């Protein structure tokens, strides 16, 4: 192991702080998304403490919005757990792609860093690592920025959410749907992806009409995933 290689994964107070500061500008947007979540959760009927707890411990926006979509008087735990897993399964890939650098850390730090992994800090640090630059501070410090701003935004959203009288007339019931759709359309798009989406849509609608409540999310996710495993992209 050369010196350069061992520097790549170094994690200390100064590079964590540098990473924290580097992601502050981007995190302004995270506050707004957090605000939208706090607002949506308040409209859905969640109390303030549960909403804050969810943002603090789950820290995964799309899956939190999805949970609000499934919310009712009662909620079935298994479909909810599978939906959350399916949405957050991309974390598995993030961990796997970072493994070549994370493996140099002792397990406690390795899994500590992964507590705050999310799309933005993963993409930025993977890019840096691949160029041969150190990025462990960016990965962890940047993750802490995103996390703290997400929780702060959620708190703001709860505060404003309680002040709004008629959210539907303001279009605020569409925050969740529009958020999830923007995430979807922002990803990669080609013939294969459209085929996968079509199968997922048809499967979920069939399940929606003919199967028990809330199973449509799981059925659609699995149907699309299976097609993706059969019709694979040509490797690299």
């Amino acid at each position, binding site marked *: 192991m050369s010196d350069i290689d061992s520097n790549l994964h170094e994690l200390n107070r100064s590079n964590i702080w540098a990473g924290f500061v580097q992601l502050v500008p981007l995190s302004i*947007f995270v506050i707004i*998304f957090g605000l939208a979540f706090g607002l949506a959760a308040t409209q859905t*009927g*969640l*109390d303030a403490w549960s909403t804050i*707890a969810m943002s603090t411990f789950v*820290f995964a926006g799309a*899956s939190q919005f999805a*949970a609000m979509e499934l919310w009712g*008087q*009662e*909620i*079935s*735990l*298994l479909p*909810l*757990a599978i939906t*959350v*897993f*399916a*949405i*957050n*399964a*991309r*974390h*598995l*890939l*993030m*961990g*796997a*792609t970072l493994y070549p650098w994370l*493996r140099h850390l002792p397990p406690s730090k*390795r*899994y500590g860093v992964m*507590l705050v992994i999310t799309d933005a800090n993963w993409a930025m640090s993977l890019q840096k690592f691949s160029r041969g630059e150190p990025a462990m501070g960016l990965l962890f410090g940047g993750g802490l920025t995103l996390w703290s701003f997400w929780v702060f935004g959620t708190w703001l959203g709860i505060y404003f959410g309680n002040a709004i009288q008629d959210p539907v007339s303001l*279009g605020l019931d*569409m*925050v969740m*749907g*529009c*958020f999830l*759709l*923007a*995430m*979807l*359309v*922002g990803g990669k798009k080609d013939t294969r992806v459209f085929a996968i989406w079509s199968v*997922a849509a048809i499967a*979920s609608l069939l399940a*929606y009409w003919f199967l028990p409540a809330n199973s449509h*999310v799981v*059925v*659609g*996710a*699995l149907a*699309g*995933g299976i097609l*993706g*495993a059969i019709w*694979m992209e040509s490797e690299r």
Partner: protein
Amino acid sequence: MSIETGGYGALVIVIVMTLVTLATRWGGVFVMSFVPISYRVQQFISAMSGSVLVALLAPLALNGDNGARLALLATALTMLMVKKPLLAITMGIVTAAVYRYLFP
């Protein structure tokens, strides 16, 4: 198994969501320390994480009022044209609000 969302129910739901999400954050690294994740499994995971969003949205688009449908359309179009999520979401919400104001 169903659970009431009031009182302690919400707490249980938050705990379940936390554990599942933690499993996804740690799982990739954990599995890789024993065996590399195969290409087919990677393809399954990435196809599934898009499909779950489609599956959530399909009934919403089908059952929503016209305001909701136009909102989703506006979000999709904005996202395709400028690739700015925040702007796309704002356009969707404004579209729903304007439509519902004009055609209550």
